[in-house]
């Protein structure tokens, strides 16, 4: 599949925003349960909510660039009974509203903190629902075997959460230092879990056998079939949308690149910060590296998916 920049930005930006909100709520919930010594400052929650909202809004803006007719985007909420895309279109604004309310209640001061926690827990549920919707948009397309697995929504959840908690650890280093280590621990665990989930999907994808063949595509049962003409010499949507167009060399280096950027380096930096061998502010660098790595990871997610329609478009003339 062709990796569209708009969708890569959408899924990575809202993933970080969703994870960040859940990180804020985690800090607050742990403090409420008296599992943490001190509640965090209002500034931490307020800035955190605003950053999460900005990430979500940026993702929403990016998504419009994926549409041919963005002025009709409101229509996309109609088919929530059957379409995961429609469900995502409903859950994303609902989640953004909950994040805005969460930030607003924190902005009103300490008396509203418990109300904010209740809203935050609801927002966390919406955040998880949004991860499932986003992941299922891909996992529900049974023709794309690389995506058609429960690992897809699982990895969207783990990778988005990891980047959000890493960002929260960076924010805490500046605004709520007592909680920076706590969040770095969460971020490290989620990064490692994300690495395991993504490794599992890569391992699975390397062993897939395509269900459709050239024989089933044209219904001729002969072992040797070669396409001599795809029927046209010019360009077509079928060539632009379903082929990534990158060289085999690029495909080889992107995977190790995101393995290092999204998982290995952030895990190392977060581990060092946790062990007290590095300043907690290193989490900011960890987030920057991880986000860049997740952009590459998302590009690879699309590029690796092989659509059966490509069987009909093998000849270049």
């Amino acid at each position: 599949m062709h990796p569209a920049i708009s969708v890569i930005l959408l899924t990575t930006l809202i993933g970080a925003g969703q994870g960040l909100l859940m990180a804020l709520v985690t800090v607050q919930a742990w403090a409420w349960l008296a599992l943490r010594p001190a509640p965090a400052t209002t500034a931490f929650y307020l800035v955190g909510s605003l950053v999460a909202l900005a990430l979500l809004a940026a993702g929403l803006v990016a998504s419009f660039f994926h549409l041919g007719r963005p002025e009709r985007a409101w229509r996309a909420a109609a088919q929530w009974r059957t379409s995961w895309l429609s469900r995502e279109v409903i859950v994303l604004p609902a989640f953004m509203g909950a994040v805005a309310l969460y930030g607003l209640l924190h902005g009103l001061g300490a008396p509203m903190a418990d109300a904010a926690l209740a809203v935050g827990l609801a927002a966390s549920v919406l955040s998880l629902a949004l991860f499932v919707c986003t992941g299922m948009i891909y996992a529900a397309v049974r023709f794309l075997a690389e995506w058609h697995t429960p690992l897809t929504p699982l990895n969207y959840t783990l990778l988005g959460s990891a980047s959000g908690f890493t960002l929260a650890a960076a924010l805490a280093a500046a605004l709520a230092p007592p909680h920076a280590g706590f969040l770095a621990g969460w971020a490290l665990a989620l990064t490692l879990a994300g690495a395991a989930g993504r490794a599992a999907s890569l391992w699975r994808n390397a062993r897939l056998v395509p269900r459709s063949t050239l024989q089933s595509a044209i219904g001729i049962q002969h072992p040797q079939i070669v396409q001599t003409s795809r029927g046209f010499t010019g360009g077509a949507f079928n060539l632009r949308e379903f082929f990534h167009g990158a060289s085999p060399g690029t495909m080889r280096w992107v995977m190790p690149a995101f393995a290092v950027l999204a998982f290995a380096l952030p895990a190392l930096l977060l581990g060092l910060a946790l062990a007290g061998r590095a300043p907690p502010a290193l989490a900011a660098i960890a987030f920057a590296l991880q986000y860049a790595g997740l952009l590459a990871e998302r590009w690879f997610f699309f590029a690796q998916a092989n659509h059966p329609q490509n069987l009909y478009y093998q000849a270049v003339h």
Partner: protein
Amino acid sequence: MSKRQLALVIDLNVCVGCHACVTSCKEWNGAGAAGPMSDQQPWGADPSGTFFNRVQTFEVGEYPNTQTVHFPKSCLHCEEPPCVPVCPTGASYKREEDGIVLVDYDKCIGCKYCSWACPYGAREVDAQQKVMKKCTLCVDRIYDARLPEADRLPACVKACPTSARIFGDIHDPQSAASVAIREHGGYALMPEWGTKPANHYLPRRITRMRIHDDELLRADNPLRVEGHPPRPAPDAATLDDVAPW
């Protein structure tokens, strides 16, 4: 399941790969209700365009034992269309009355999700109108009472010079399309996905002409009765043997 299911049955045994169906489709639908089917830089270095129908060519077998198969490909109007439920706006739909799968251009937001959910690559975004397009089975033509009855057929069917395209209701066992599927081994593409394509394809068939000697020698030549053998005699030189061409 819709009551009627209109479909095309494409006979690969007689398709000669002339692309008349491609050009007539483009001509009709480019100007009709399903249009425009825009082209980008049609005379430039890198032309591109929207088509509802393509004719592809495959070589089957190993030289010299090969068959060249011309393979027209368009929307198959599946009975279980996977492209319809994924549409977030309801722009993609399957008509209850005749099973045609259509896109409402006024509702389509151009998200391309339905094209991902079609294993056949039958849907194309029009680069000018920015909405998803696909074969309509010429829905604006087949019901047009202003046209003579003989013209109420998809443009591709009308254009095919070898009658390789049969149009009809495959839920009616007596239709020409159903008879062709039943009697000539009609099959569906990629049956492994359970999409139940309405369009079917008829396989290549080896047809041999059997000619007996008496058919060439005119055993019934009335001259024989008169005692005059046919001339020239079978072993004598013919005009082809003596003429300089």
